[in-house]
């Protein structure tokens, strides 16, 4: 369904390779605010039809990066292309954007607010309002269509804004921290909606500081910390950055077989923990059996995105991520 993600880590600023058509291509984006570097040489390649996450702690440069990609602000250096266009406003009708700080006119009715957002993206106001009503019905908010935004609950207003982001049927949807402020139920609904968009060929890129969302939804991810992107590529490739961990339990605590364990093997309680050897597990198994280690249990655990994040961005960035929303990280 989706184009393969050919991107790999680019800590050394090598260009990412990409075979499929790109929705977004950014190279060397730099942005300074009053002399402070907010984004420092960001490279991104987002294939068309992908769900792509921009993962990083608050203040890492996620929003600034997205704003540059959308043409809201211009980069001080670097190139960005959205569907091949260097000026994103030229293809504004193809893009839907949900900013982190939600905003709607408080005195507008729900369907009018969606209509206005549609009109901004090139629909006629009448069509956009009519579609707004339909979308509200489809998402169980038909009863709120005539209510003003200030009369809606926060969650309902957020849904209205999201529908306004999608009313013109964009080919690229950019969501800045879309899950923030939503309860678990609405987060689940939003995840479903994102998957449905991607299933229809829409490219979705969203920023988040919650690793679980990126891990569940994204094929591709850019890890951003301190304005830099130390990794951009597939989620699988990110996880593969860390060798799988082997957990071994043996009857014997010592013996000649111990010489076969990798150098990083360490005892943790009754287990031996070590990285999966590059030669694979088979030679080790043979050595354990021949050395009468008495294998009680053996499991190979692949690294999660969180471990990959720590490995790539560093402990400090990971701590900042967790400090931002410990509850959400736990979900």
């Amino acid at each position, binding site marked *: 369904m989706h184009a393969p993600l050919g991107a790999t880590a680019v800590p050394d600023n090598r260009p990412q390779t990409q075979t499929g058509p790109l929705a977004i291509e950014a190279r060397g984006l730099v942005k300074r605010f009053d002399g402070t570097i*907010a984004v420092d040489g960001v490279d991104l390649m987002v294939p068309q039809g992908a769900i792509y996450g921009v993962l990083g702690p608050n203040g890492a440069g996620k*929003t600034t990066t997205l704003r540059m990609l959308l043409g809201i602000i211009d980069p001080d250096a670097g190139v960005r292309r959205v569907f091949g266009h260097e000026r994103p*406003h030229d293809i504004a009708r193809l893009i839907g954007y949900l900013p982190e700080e939600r905003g709607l006119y408080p005195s507008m009715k729900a369907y009018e607010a969606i209509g206005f957002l549609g009109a*901004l993206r*090139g629909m006629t106001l009448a069509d956009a309002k009519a579609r707004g009503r339909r979308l509200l019905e489809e998402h169980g908010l038909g009863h709120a269509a005539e209510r003003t935004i200030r009369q809606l609950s926060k969650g309902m207003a957020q849904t209205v804004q999201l529908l306004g982001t999608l009313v013109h049927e*964009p080919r690229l949807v950019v969501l800045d921290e879309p899950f923030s402020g939503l309860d678990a139920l609405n987060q689940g609904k939003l995840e479903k909606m994102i998957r449905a968009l991607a299933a*229809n060929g829409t490219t979705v890129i969203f920023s988040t500081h919650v690793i679980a969302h990126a891990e569940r939804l994204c094929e591709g991810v850019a890890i951003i910390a301190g304005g830099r992107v130390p990794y951009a590529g597939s989620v699988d490739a990110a996880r593969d950055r860390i060798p799988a961990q082997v957990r071994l339990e043996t009857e014997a605590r010592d013996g000649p077989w111990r010489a076969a364990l990798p150098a990083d093997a360490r005892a943790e309680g009754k287990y031996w923990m070590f990285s999966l050897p590059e030669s694979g597990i088979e030679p080790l198994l043979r050595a354990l059996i021949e050395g009468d280690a008495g294998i009680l249990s053996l499991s190979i655990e692949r690294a999660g995105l969180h471990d990959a994040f720590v490995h790539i961005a*560093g402990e*400090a*960035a990971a701590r900042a991520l967790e400090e931002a929303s410990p509850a959400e990280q736990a979900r």
Partner: protein
Amino acid sequence: MTADAPHTPMSRLPLAQAAFVVARRDFSAILFSKAFLFFLLGPVFFGLVLIGSASIGRKTAENAEPPVLAVMLAPEAARAFSAAHDRLRDRVDLPRIAIVEPAAAPSPAAVLGQADANYGAVLSGTLAAPRLTGTRERLERWRGPVALIAANALDGPAAFPPVTLAETATSQSTQKRARGDTATAALTLMFLLTMLLAGMVMSNLVEEKANKIIEILAAAIPMDAVFIGKLFAMLGVSFVGIAVWGGIAGLVLTLGGGALQPLAPPAVGWPLFAAMFFAYFSMAYLLIGSIYLTIGAMAPTVRDVQTLSLPATMLQLGVFFLATYSTSSLGSPSEMVALAFPLSSPYAMVSRAAQEPALWPHLAALAWQALWVLLFVRFGARLFRRRVMKSGPAPTSRRGFLRRARS
């Protein structure tokens, strides 16, 4: 969702259309807001300010170009009258005088009607039986001084000679002053409207920044379109307001009939003057509105708006005073400055339209102002685009994060 959507490769809302989307929203939102009700109450404040400024304007006009007493006596008597005037003027407040040959005009009324002079009244007859021709107000003010000068010229008789009064409906001086009042009223109205609107458009923008809507607009359409849309929406709102006020004023004048004394007809006539007022008002608003919008874009909070807009408000007041001052001195260097300076030019020209019938200067002035409007809007929009979204996370918190990340 998008597979069958009818998108063209280049999908961009044209600038004018994008500006229209913003303007339409703003226009309807403001029209049905409380702010518009306050805007409609504007004439009340206008009335109060007008009374004050008209009296200042009249005083300024009289000081700058006081009406002159035309002395239309026989040469011998005129010389004696002038000599007596010279003797007395240091001790008594007397009107300025000008000697007019009796042969130069068929009657005192004709002298009063001379467009190139500023005669308030005409003295004819003899020194012993002076005859004063002019408007009632002027006759009341000058009959005493005329009798005093005439008595002095006659070498001090026991009693002042009786002054015969010949009242006329108007004089060139009275008409000038009345047109000056019309000019002052027009430019005061224009000043109040532009101030009110510029403030409203700035508040509207700051509110939008506070509501975080500006980012959605910035992502969808060029910021130039946001700038232009907001500017013109408020102009449209003002036209509605003016239409409402105009309708009410027309109704009051119709019902009030002769009991009310409306302003003197402007030199170019009412229909043309109304058209010019709209044109100059639009120019004045677009110029100051673009300054205020740019300030709104640069100010992150309402408090910052107040601080940043203070110089603009002072500038606007300066422009108003310059234009009011130059109302009474057409052709003077101060008026030339007021005409040339883009922000005061609309005010100075509307004042001119009230007092001078020539039309060609208006074409030149409108072209000049349109050029500045274009420059102001373009520069304002550019600055607006640069500054309105210049809001990354606070540098301190970023530095804090970086410290953590490096530790």
